[in-house]
C-alpha cells in the first residue's frame, strides 16, 4: 500500500470499521423502524448476537498492531516486526513440537515444555499454541466475509439498480451478464478465477465476490423494477428531481432491508467456501480452513492428535452458527413477507 506498511493499513481499517459500527448504531437508534427491528432482534437472539460480538472483538484486537516492545528473551519473532494485541498476549509461547492441552511435557518424547500447563488447547506440529492460531483465524474469517461482501454488494447494487431503473440496453447487458455467470457452477467458476488471478488473499476475496454478487444483483434488479413503478417515485419524477436523487433517496432506502439480510446470509456461505478452497490448496493464509486441512491427517496418527482440528472446527462452527441464527432473526424482523402472522 503506497508507502504504508501493511500493519499501518490494518490499523486504519480497524479505525474505519469502528467508525462504521458507530455510525450504524447511530442510524439504528435514530430511525424508529430500525430501532424497533433492532430491539426485536436483540430480544429474540441475544446469545447469538453476543457470540458474533465476541468474534468481532477478537478480530479487531488482532488488527491493531504496532512495532517494538518485545522483551529481550523472546526469540521466535523477528525484531521490529509489527505485532498485534493477540500476538503480544501469546508472545514466547512457542514450543518445539506437539503438546496436548494443558500438558506438562511434550506429546512425543516427553521432553519438558518451556511453558508447561499453559497451552489450553495444546500446540501444533511446529509448537505453536493452538488457542493463539484459532483466535487469529477469527480475523481472517471476518476479513473473508466482510471484504468480499464489500466487493460484492456494491457491485450488485450498481448493476442491479442501474439495470432495473434505467432499463433498455444496459438492462439487456446486465441480464445477459448475470445469466452467463449464473450458468457456471459456482465452485468451478471460483476455482477458475483463483487459478487465473493468483492465490493471494485479495484475489481470493475478489473471486468470491465475483461469484457471489449475481444472486443479489438479480434480486435488487427485480425489486427496483417494482419500486420504479410506484406512485411516490412517479411523484418524485413529476417534481423534477434528478435521476440520481430519485435512485439515492427513493429507491436505495427501500432496498436497505434486503442489503442487510443479504450481507448476513452471504457471510456464512463465504466463510464456508473458503474452507473448501483451503482444502484445494487455494485458500487464505491463517484461516480455520487451512488449520483444518493441515490437521486432518493428524487424526490418523497414533495416539490421535485431535485438539488442532477440534479447535479450528469448533471456532468455525460457532461463528457460522451464530451468524446463521442472527441472519434468520434479521430476516424475520425485516422481511415484510415473514411479518404477517401465522395462519
Amino acid at each position, binding site marked *: 500500500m503506497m508507502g504504508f506498511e501493511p500493519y499501518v493499513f490494518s490499523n486504519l481499517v480497524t479505525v474505519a470499521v469502528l467508525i462504521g459500527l458507530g455510525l450504524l448504531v447511530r442510524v439504528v437508534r435514530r430511525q424508529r423502524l430500525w430501532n424497533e427491528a433492532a430491539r426485536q432482534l436483540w430480544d429474540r437472539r441475544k446469545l447469538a448476537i453476543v457470540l458474533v460480538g465476541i468474534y468481532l472483538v477478537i478480530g479487531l484486537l488482532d488488527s491493531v498492531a504496532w512495532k517494538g516492545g518485545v522483551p529481550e528473551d523472546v526469540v521466535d519473532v523477528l525484531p521490529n516486526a509489527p505485532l498485534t494485541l493477540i500476538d503480544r498476549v501469546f508472545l514466547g509461547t512457542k514450543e518445539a513440537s506437539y503438546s496436548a492441552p494443558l500438558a506438562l511435557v511434550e506429546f512425543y518424547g516427553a521432553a519438558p515444555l518451556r511453558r508447561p500447563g499453559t497451552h489450553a488447547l495444546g500446540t501444533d506440529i511446529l509448537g505453536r499454541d493452538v488457542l493463539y492460531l484459532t483466535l487469529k483465524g477469527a480475523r481472517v474469517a471476518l476479513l473473508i466475509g466482510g471484504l468480499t461482501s464489500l466487493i460484492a454488494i456494491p457491485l450488485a447494487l450498481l448493476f442491479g439498480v442501474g439495470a432495473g431503473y434505467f432499463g433498455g440496453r444496459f438492462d439487456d447487458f446486465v441480464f445477459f451478464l448475470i445469466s452467463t455467470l449464473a*450458468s*457456471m*457452477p459456482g465452485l468451478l467458476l471460483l476455482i477458475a478465477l483463483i487459478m487465473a488471478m493468483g492465490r493471494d488473499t485479495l484475489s481470493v476475496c475478489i473471486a468470491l465476490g465475483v461469484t457471489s454478487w449475481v444472486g443479489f444483483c438479480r434480486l435488487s434488479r427485480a425489486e427496483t423494477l417494482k419500486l420504479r413503478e410506484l406512485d411516490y417515485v412517479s411523484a418524485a419524477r413529476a417534481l423534477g428531481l434528478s435521476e440520481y436523487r430519485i435512485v439515492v433517496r427513493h429507491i436505495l432506502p427501500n432496498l436497505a432491508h434486503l442489503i442487510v439480510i443479504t450481507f448476513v446470509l452471504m457471510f456464512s456461505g463465504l466463510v464456508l467456501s473458503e474452507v473448501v478452497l483451503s*482444502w484445494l*490448496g487455494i485458500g487464505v493464509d491463517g484461516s480455520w*480452513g487451512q488449520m483444518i486441512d493441515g490437521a486432518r491427517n493428524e*487424526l490418523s496418527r497414533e495416539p490421535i492428535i485431535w485438539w488442532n482440528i477440534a479447535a479450528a*472446527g469448533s471456532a468455525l462452527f460457532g461463528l457460522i*452458527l451464530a451468524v446463521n441464527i442472527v441472519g*434468520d432473526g434479521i430476516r424475520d424482523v425485516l422481511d415484510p413477507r415473514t411479518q404477517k402472522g401465522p395462519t
Partner: protein
Amino acid sequence: MGAYVIRRLLYGVGVVLGVLFLLFILFFAVTKPEDIARRALGEKAPPEVIEQWMVNHGYDRPLWPWQDLDDNLLFDHYRKMLTFEFGLSDADDSPIIDRIAAGIGPSLALTVPLLFLGLLVSIPLSLLVAFFRETYIDRMGVFLCVLAMSVSMLLYIIGAQFLIGKILRWYPISGFDPTLLMMPRFLAMPIIVGLLGGVGGDVRFYRTVFLEESSRDFVRTARAKGASEPQIMTRHILRNALIPILTNVVLAIPFLFTGALLLEAFFGIPGLGSITVDAIAANDFATLRTMVFIGSLLLIVGQIATDLSYGLVDPRVRFE
C-alpha cells in the same frame, strides 16, 4: 409457445457463447499460454522447450482475431469446445475426452442415489415440520437444520472417515469398485455424508415453500369443506409446491455429472469431481476449462428445461 421455446433456446446459445468468452478471458488472456507452459514445465525450463510444448498443445498462435483473422486462439477455442474436441491435458498429454468418459460412470453412481435419497429424506421431513408449524417441533426442526448447515462439508467428511478408519475399523476408508456387488460398500459412507451435508438446507427451503402455499386461499377452502390435515398437506400443499421443488431438482441435475467435488476426492471415487481436483493440483488448465465448460453447458440445459417444464406442470403458467 413455439415462439417462446425458440427464443429461450436462442438465448441459451447466447449464454453458452458468453461462458466460452469468459473462459477465454480467464484461461488465455489473464493466464497467458506462456504462463501455462511455464507452470507445466517448471520455472527453469529452457525457452526452446517451452516453445515446443506450446506448439504441441496448439498454444503457439496469436490470441485475438484482429492479430490474425484465420489462425487465432479465440476462434480455435470456440471451435474446439463447441465440437467437443477438448484436446490434450496440459499436465500429462493424455486426451481429456477419454478421462471424462471414464469419470462419468463413477460420478453418476455417487450422485444419482444421493439426489433421490436426498428428496426421499428432505421432502417428508419438511412436510412434517411444516405440518407442525409454529409449535415446539417446528422450532426444534428449524434449529436442527441451521445446526446441520453450519458444519463445514469438510468436517463432515473428516468426521466420517475418522469414524470408519479409527472407530469402526472398516477398511478401506476410501476407494471404488465398479462391479455392482461391491459398489455399495464404497458408496455408503459418501452418500450418508452427502445427505447430512445437504439435508439441512433442503428441509429449510422446502419448509418455507410449504408454508407459503399453506397460507393460500385454496387451502382455507379445503379446510372449510372438511378435508383432513394430512390430506390438505399432501393433496393441496405438496402438489402446488411442486414447481419450486422441480426447479431445485432440475438445477441439481448438472451437478450429478460434475459430481460432488469434495466427496469424490476424499472417498477416492474416480469421477469428474476427482478429475477437477487433480487438474487444480497439477495446474492442468486445459482439463480445468473443459470441466468448467461441461458443467456450465449442463447447467444451461437444466435451466432451459426448467423454464419449459413450468408450462407442463403448472397450467397457470402461460408463455406470451
